């Protein structure tokens, strides 16, 4: 049993990874931290992801211990600079 989540990359992340979106399969019970570890484990260029990046799960800012469900949208949020 696994959980398929949709990850989104913006701005500097997207430029660096060359993709704006990625589907990632995770073991059931995984958290955002597990997703981060999975991505970083892929090596370059994903290993430049911080260990504790800012994320939004389903468009809500979340902590890294947030459990992930099937179909969740996890966005990696580089430091924001609006205004």
């Amino acid at each position, binding site marked *: 049993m696994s959980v398929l989540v949709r990850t*989104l990359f*913006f*701005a*500097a*992340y*997207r*430029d*660096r990874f060359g993709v704006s979106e990625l589907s990632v399969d995770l073991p059931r019970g995984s958290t955002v*931290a597990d997703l981060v570890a999975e991505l970083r484990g892929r090596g370059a260029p994903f290993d*430049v*992801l*911080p260990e*504790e*990046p*800012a*994320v*939004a799960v389903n*468009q809500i*800012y*979340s*902590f*890294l*211990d947030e459990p992930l469900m099937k179909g969740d949208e996890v*966005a990696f*949020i*580089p*430091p*924001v*600079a*609006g*205004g």
Partner: protein
Amino acid sequence: MVFAEVRSDPINAAGLLAKVGADEDGVALLFIGVVRDHAEGRRVEGMRYDVYAEMATEVLHKIALEASERLGTDRIAVVHRFGELEIGDVSVGIAVSSPHRAEAYGASRYMIEEIKRRLPVWKKEHYADGVSEWVEGTTPPGTGLDGSTHALPLADEGLA
């Protein structure tokens, strides 16, 4: 009624003012953020705003609702633009109206500060020398392991 929008079309500042106001209001305040020609001593020729559109719309609306509590009215219109902008283009417009001025200034300022703190928008400056770089921003609160901010190695590696 609170109006919050993220859009790629130009912002009509006067139109924002027209969305607020009521017979009981004694003041209206319009804040406009504009693309300027310099940043940290470097000459800027333009800018690209990227946005996480669906989330930004939600966050902007939430910021406006929070500001509404301070304002004492729901007469707020706020718009943030994304896409390619030129010098002088309006990137953000915030209009509020209320019976008294202290609340108007407070709510307006609250909104622009919160927009900079947590609206999922990023800007890439185009410099006169042809280089473009993402502007170093702010890690939004309520993220990470404990809500503290973290230096992003990405920024240090000069991801442009």
